[in-house]
């Protein structure tokens, strides 16, 4: 079974802040990590491979330093990493990104399953997975919480809903996006890390994947970010300290003063 996992390098959410002047994401000194949902997608792919045999290829679109997350994925059990990187991809929204990823998947050749995290924690759109499936013209399931059965023709999954879950059966090739409940990602093994260190990462440019210039990057993105701003702080904040009793006393006093 040929499995493709799409991953993204994102700033660590624990560290996210906006530059107060430019209102863009402050990346200086912020650690980059593999998007947490993508770790679950990778784990699921590796688990399916361990059960069914086959190969796991991870792909990421991003700047050259995104190679780090590909190596991390190899350390966690992926067989190969593909970095799709080109200045022309800069400024891509979810529409252009899904086009770029689709071109990449098609360039790689035959596949049975594509896995993505539900969404990336920086953009939070949850659009790229479904977008990619539509571009590839394959069925998809979002928010998968469990893989029930996999064969070489069909996959049966549970899709998380607000009030329970749906059971979906998809003919392969198919795509699914996963939620965190699906598994517990493993810690990268020593052997995996050694392998990752030596692994050769394939690199694709826009022309390598046959991407048309009007469909990628800023030019291919119908969504334009007009303005990013930090919401204004709302009024005064007060943080109480001391024991719980003391804090409650302080709070009551404070409320009384405003009566």
């Amino acid at each position: 079974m040929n499995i493709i996992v799409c991953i993204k390098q994102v700033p660590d959410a624990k560290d996210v802040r906006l530059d107060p002047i430019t209102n863009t994401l402050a990346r200086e000194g912020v650690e980059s990590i593999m998007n947490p949902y993508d770790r679950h997608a990778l784990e699921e792919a590796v688990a399916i491979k361990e059960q069914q045999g086959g190969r796991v290829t991870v792909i990421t679109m991003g700047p050259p330093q995104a190679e780090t997350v590909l190596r991390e994925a190899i350390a966690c059990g992926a067989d190969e990493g593909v970095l799709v990187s080109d200045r022309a991809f800069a400024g891509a929204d979810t529409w252009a990104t899904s086009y770029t990823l689709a071109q990449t998947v098609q360039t790689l050749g035959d596949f049975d399953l594509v896995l993505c995290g539900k969404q990336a924690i920086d953009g939070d759109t949850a659009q790229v997975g479904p977008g990619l499936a539509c571009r590839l013209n394959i069925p998809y399931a979002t928010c998968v919480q469990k893989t029930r059965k996999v064969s070489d023709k069909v996959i049966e999954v549970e899709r998380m809903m607000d009030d329970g879950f749906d059971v979906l059966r998809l003919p392969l090739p198919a795509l699914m996006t996963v939620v965190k409940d699906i598994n517990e990602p493993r810690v990268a093994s020593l052997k995996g890390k050694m392998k990752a260190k030596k692994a050769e990462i394939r690199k694709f440019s826009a022309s390598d994947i046959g991407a048309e210039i009007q469909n990628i990057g800023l030019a291919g993105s119908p969504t334009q970010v007009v303005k990013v701003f930090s919401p204004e702080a709302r009024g005064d904040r007060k943080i109480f300290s001391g024991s719980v009793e003391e804090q409650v006393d302080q709070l009551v006093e404070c409320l009384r003063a405003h009566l």
Partner: protein
Amino acid sequence: MDYFFTEQQQMIIDTAREITNEKIIPLRAELDEKNQFPKAILQDIAKADLFSIFVPEEYGGFGGGCYEIVLAMEELARGCVGVATSFAASALGIFPVLISGSEEQKQRYLPDIAEGSRWAAFGLTEANAGSDASGIQTTAVLDGDEWVLNGTKQWITNGGEAQIYTIVAMTDPQKGARGASIFIVEDGDPGFSYGKKEDKMGIRSSATRELILKDCRIPQDRLVGRKGTGFITVMKTLDISRPGIASLGIGLAQAALDEAVVYAKQRVQFGKPIISFQAVQHMLADMAIQLEAGRALVYAAARHIDSNPKNISKASSMCKVFATDMAMKVTTDAVQVLGGYGYMKEYPVEKMMRDAKILQIYEGTNQIQRNVVGQELNREYS
């Protein structure tokens, strides 16, 4: 402090750290509370290849030395000494095979140990043989082409959970220490069963159990090394395993110091964080100083052992005593810094203090370690 680790050592530390942060810390309080063996965590540790550190490369291992083992154990102990003890016990249990086992035994057991698919345990202690290991009453008699073992082992770490046991038994009771031999007993061998499971003060997630050998029959080729050489192997085993116990003290003390400093910065009394008071600051400083001194000694002893010197007993015992006495002191002081909160189970330091105590007792009490150091001094200056 920077100890100039190699890239491989750093990789081991990082891997163990991820296991500790992601798998151990979130579960440790529950495992302690429920007295529950950390099977799933050990499986995660296996998947991360950490069990392979102490197995040579030719048997599917990573081929690390004492230093590498120490680095991994320190990180695991920062999460939970109970979990780290269960991990360490598998190394302890297989060391006799590594030290004195036949090629055939190594090929049969080491790959599984490296993979973490089977765990080991070391069966030395008995009711009447603790610090005085020569008091062993378990016997092994050759009957045809099988050994027949009889006796009861007490307080065996990983008892009932491991699949491979190295058992010390007397093959020639009249000869005393020279009459002891080591045997490999496997889970499921006829006449081999498990007895009482202990309810302990600390390291409660680790399994501590009686092993019962009642006419336990095992094939002749389970004898490790030559007959009568058991004690030499036991001493060599403990010599190389003790820095591991020392490193548990280091990891544990680091965890306690971390908790104490973070708390002291947050806790406000008399209008100031308590870390600004000299009484507290000096306590934290002493904890940090003792910890770093202990770490440096453990690393130095481990590197000394890896250089293959003739005698490692003194270095091994010195680091075990210092690091574990230090861990007892530092964890006790951490509880003191946290005051009433430190005494409560809501905070992790009371568990750390309970866990610390065993480090001064097992794998040779710290009194026995001082004997070893003293005897070596006596010998060196003769």
